[in-house]
């Protein structure tokens, strides 16, 4: 109270600048702790947010709450069994983590999965991408208070999980990726039936897209918020929708792993770099995933789905890259010639996107921080492994 009374009249009517605050012996930027427990954060992540009035002038991220040491386990598990651990890095991109590990090990072994296995891998990758993006729409809608949109998105997602269950037996952990191919082989009729079962979801998603991209309430929360320039996104190593929403045409699927080299698709790119652009990239990618699944079902070749893997892997190393829903992921394995690999490493997309997220927060208001965090679609379990 004393401090208030000694301020000049004009200063009481407007916010103080940082220098004025210092002159009056008032602390500079306020530090607001955000997380690790917060209503919009499904997983623990912490930020020290530095604010001048309501504007973010800096943010220091902190991870480390759920580190499980999964990479180290590779030294204690048979290299063919470890795929089950790799799948459990994340409950959303589980299949892709298992598959990425397999691709890297297959690189060391010098083998390639059979054609049908490569096409099935593509099918499940796109299934995972579609349900992950729908889950994101739901979480984002929930964060800005649009409950009915949250319900509609997750209702459609359930249909996708039903297809995952029918084709793999699992809704979260598919258990279908194995070194040398895949362990499940749904027949062509099953795949065609699954695509028919997804028709209602595809119809609903078209409507969801309109709401997400055109509803004035949603636009008010997302447009012009958390803008990240293309240059900043690239320099800070952003990947996935975070990078593509800022105008960069980079999608690791272009490498042609699995069956992506044989299926035509366009990279989804937006240019505004704001939260809405990131949402638009994900929504357009859902539609694209269904189109790719259509092509897989129409063109999947017949044949075996796995190679017999026997003996020890040779001494060697391999990097493999995939495009997960959140962006490019990098897998590395090194073999010492025994059944236990010497090193397995995953660089997940959220890990790469954290510096860009901090940059996107700069200059934004405190109330927009949850939306900005959500639009990188953070997966902290992946990040900490």
């Amino acid at each position, binding site marked *: 109270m004393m401090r208030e009374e000694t301020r000049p009249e004009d200063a009481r009517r407007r916010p103080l600048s940082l220098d004025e605050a210092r002159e009056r012996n008032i602390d500079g930027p306020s530090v607001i702790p955000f997380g690790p427990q917060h209503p919009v954060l499904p997983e623990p992540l912490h930020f020290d947010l530095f604010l001048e009035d309501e504007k973010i002038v800096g943010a220091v991220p902190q991870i480390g709450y759920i580190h499980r040491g999964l990479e180290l386990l590779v030294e204690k598990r048979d290299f063919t069994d470890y795929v089950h651990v790799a799948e459990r890095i994340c409950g959303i991109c589980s299949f892709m983590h298992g598959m990425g590990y397999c691709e890297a090990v297959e690189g060391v072994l010098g083998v390639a999965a059979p054609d049908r296995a490569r096409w099935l891998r593509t099918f499940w990758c796109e299934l995972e991408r579609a349900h992950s993006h729908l889950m994101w729409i739901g979480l984002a809608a929930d964060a800005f208070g649009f409950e009915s949109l949250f319900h509609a998105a997750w209702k459609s997602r359930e249909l996708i999980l039903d297809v995952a269950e029918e084709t793999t037996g699992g809704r979260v952990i598919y258990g279908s990726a194995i070194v040398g191919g895949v362990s499940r082989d749904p027949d062509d009729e099953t795949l065609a039936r699954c695509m028919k079962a997804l028709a209602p979801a595809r119809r609903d998603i078209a409507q969801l897209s309109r709401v997400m991209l055109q509803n004035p309430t949603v636009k008010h929360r997302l447009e012009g918020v958390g803008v990240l320039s293309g240059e900043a996104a690239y320099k800070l*190593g952003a990947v996935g929708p975070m990078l593509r929403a800022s105008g960069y045409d980079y999608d690791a699927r272009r490498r042609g792993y699995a069956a992506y080299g044989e299926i035509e698709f366009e990279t989804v790119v937006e240019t505004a770099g704001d939260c809405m652009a990131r949402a638009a990239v994900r929504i357009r990618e859902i539609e694209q995933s269904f189109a790719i699944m259509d092509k897989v079902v129409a063109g999947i070749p017949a044949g075996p789905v796995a190679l017999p893997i026997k003996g020890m892997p040779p001494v060697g190393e391999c990097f493999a890259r995939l495009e997960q829903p959140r962006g490019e992921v990098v897998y590395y394995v090194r073999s010492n010639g025994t059944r236990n690999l010497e*090193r397995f490493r995953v660089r997940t997309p959220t890990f790469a996107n954290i510096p860009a997220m901090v940059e996107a927060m700069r200059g934004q208001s405190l109330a927009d921080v949850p939306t900005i965090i959500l639009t990188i679609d953070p997966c902290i379990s992946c990040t900490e492994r």
Partner: protein
Amino acid sequence: MTEKETQRIIMIETGSLLVEVDALRSAGWRLVQILCIGQADGAELSYSFGLDLELRHLRLKAAAEAALPSITSLYPGAFLYENEIRDLFGVRIERIRADWNGKVYDVAEGAEGRAGGRKPFSKVTIKATSSEEAGR
């Protein structure tokens, strides 16, 4: 197609790290990751860079007590990798822009975290864990 067909690993000396990284940065390469592998006499670090679909790696061997310069002056986003490597492998990395002082996973040497200050990826820890298992 696997990355093994296209990867390119270039061995460099610790002293030339910043020069080599700066050359890639100037040529438009983005930082993809930093990988560390613990070894009995130190650590091996691979800095991966991407340009379009190409991937290139700079690899160096750091002696146990050697200090590496941080590349955050060139790639500010590298701070997460460098903090993690210091925590998990005990590699000394100097002048990291956002320095968490060994508190990423609370397992750095000297930290009083759940792991009791052990570095989980070091050979010492692997050996200690194996002996504990054998003791049971």
